[in-house]
């Protein structure tokens, strides 16, 4: 088990282009989630809606290390991962609106975003429930002799549930090409991890299953990206699973119906964390390196802003699923 730190950046044009793309993707997620919050307040989105604001660097850093044929599967906090996987802002927003044009036809909603073509295998609502699914996708890859990998995003609280252990053990025994990516944002709803976990370094569990383990700073998209590349490398050649613990933080409440702070965390803690905003960190770094200027950043922001505005308009104007959709897709023919 090693602990990675960001390697010094010599700014090749390739690096610069990659960073530009990452900055754009983080901005897209941020603006998308802000709009989703607005739409939720207006009652255009219902049910549970778990925002990703603050954690953008994780989805973006990992996704940039993947090929289109790799699988991604996640929990209910998956808007960001779905977007960077290439599902259009329109299709994701329309799904949140429950519209027929949504990526799950309006039947899944915020917690169940799917795009089989983009190999985004869902949005799953039961904590820990999708970890075995990830191992199963990796099993299918290996079974067919493919060289894809499966990345599974989950929160630190899922480490306390049995499914995590059963899945990781089998992934290790069978050497499956899977990356277990734990987004440790310190809290499961209103419960601080240290109140319910005997060992708070999630990565410790890598030892009990003889798989690779790393801990990285989730506020630094480049660090996340490099660690993800190492892990995906291990998985692609030889199918060695990795448990990657990414230390991150959620800037919003657990879901739209939960408070931003309160008994379980202080306003000060949230404010302090916001100073580590992953978007500011990358834009600052790029400004320093001279690979972008403020005008360039503003242009990117304006671009994604327009993209999100368009998505909202599209979702708003899209039709509801037809009534007969209620009975469709219960059983395949």
């Amino acid at each position, binding site marked *: 088990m090693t602990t990675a730190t960001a390697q010094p950046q010599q700014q090749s044009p390739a690096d610069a282009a990659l960073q530009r793309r990452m900055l754009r993707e983080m901005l897209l997620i941020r603006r998308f989630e802000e709009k989703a919050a607005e739409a939720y307040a207006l009652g255009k989105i219902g*049910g549970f809606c778990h925002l990703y604001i603050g954690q953008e660097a994780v989805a973006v850093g990992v996704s940039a290390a993947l090929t289109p044929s790799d699988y991604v599967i996640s929990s209910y906090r998956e808007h960001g991962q779905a977007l960077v996987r290439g599902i259009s802002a329109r299709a994701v927003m329309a799904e949140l609106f429950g519209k027929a044009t949504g990526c799950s036809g309006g039947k899944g909603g915020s917690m*169940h975003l799917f795009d089989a073509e983009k190999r985004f295998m869902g949005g799953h609502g039961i904590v820990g429930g999708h970890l075995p699914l990830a191992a199963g996708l990796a099993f299918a890859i290996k079974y067919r002799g493919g060289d894809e990998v499966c990345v599974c995003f989950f929160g630190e609280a899922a480490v306390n549930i049995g499914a995590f252990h059963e899945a990781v053990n089998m992934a290790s025994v069978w050497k499956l090409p899977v990356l277990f990516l734990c987004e440790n944002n310190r809290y499961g709803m209103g*419960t601080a991890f240290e109140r319910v976990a005997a060992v708070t370094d999630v990565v410790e569990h890598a030892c009990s299953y003889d798989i690779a383990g790393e801990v990285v700073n989730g506020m630094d998209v480049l660090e996340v990206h490099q660690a993800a590349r190492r892990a995906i490398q291990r998985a692609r050649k030889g199918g060695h699973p990795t448990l990657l613990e990414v230390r991150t933080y959620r800037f919003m409440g657990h879901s739209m119906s939960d408070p931003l702070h309160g008994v379980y965390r202080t306003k000060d803690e949230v404010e302090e964390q916001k100073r580590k905003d992953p978007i500011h960190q990358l834009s600052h770094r790029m400004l320093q390196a001279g690979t972008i200027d403020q005008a360039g950043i503003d242009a990117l922001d304006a671009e994604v802003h327009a993209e999100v505005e368009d998505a909202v308009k599209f979702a708003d104007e899209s039709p509801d699923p037809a*009534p007969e959709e209620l009975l469709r897709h*219960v059983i395949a023919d």
Partner: protein
Amino acid sequence: MPTITYRDALNQALREEMQRDPAVFLMGEEVGLYQGAYKVSRGLLEEFGAQRVVDTPIAELGFAGIGVGAAMGGLRPVIEFMTWNFALLALDQIVNSAAKMLYMSGGQLRMPIVFRGPNGAALQLASQHSQAWESWLAHIPGLKVVAPATPADAKGLLKSAIRDNNPVVVLEGEMLYNTKGEVPEGELLVPIGQAEVKRAGSDVTVVCHSKTVAPALKAAEQLAGQGVAAEVVDLRSLRPLDESAILASVAKTHRAVVAEEGWPHSGIGAQVVDVIQRDAFDELDAPVLRVTQADTPMPYNKQLERLAKPTPDKIVAAARRVLYLD
């Protein structure tokens, strides 16, 4: 009589029983510091401390089993599931440990434990978070199952459940927590196993429980406007089932509709139908009809969700059919 919410009624029941008996404790996700995901346990941590109001990791199977073990050790645990959807992970402990302990120990080990939490659909929570498990739980010998529809029944049944020496499943409802109703002051115990006629009538019996009681009463109101007197029988307890109350009503009306939030196949309604046709065969003037959730996973979209749920209109339509009015 004070009017309070279903949530506060449950909170009163927990507080009163915890004050009354030091062996009673509450365990579950977010029940303490966070005051409960749906605030049912508000104030209990402050009053009873962290030893009796225990926040758990997300480990339904584990903490349900710890509750069962604590009951084996002489305590009276109240295990809260954030919702019953997640209790799917704990069924082995509920069914194989709690429900069978007394029997397989030859009567040595009582199991005074309560498993409670919201059951069934709320609003747009989609398929994995919108499931009603009463028929599964009522299927199991060794369990008792209650599903209160009103604040008074919620308080009275939860208090009875906590005092019961058997594992009792208490099915609440996210959509019920904010509903208000009169709750008598002081000691209130509703006996487990007794249905209640929530509205009297002579033309048709509407059997319901939990979240289908309100739509049944609305339906009865509409039917009254059409000259039909519907009797609304709230089962309240699903196991044991109050067969005599059902039969008494059908003996009067000779017609019945059964409404439930769950899926149709082998649901609670099927069992109620079985009881009626078996013991009131000659009383029946028409087949019993059922109103259930659509036989599909719950869709997220609001319109589709509405189509999937049992509604007053569907109950009215079923009632009119058993009356051969259309």
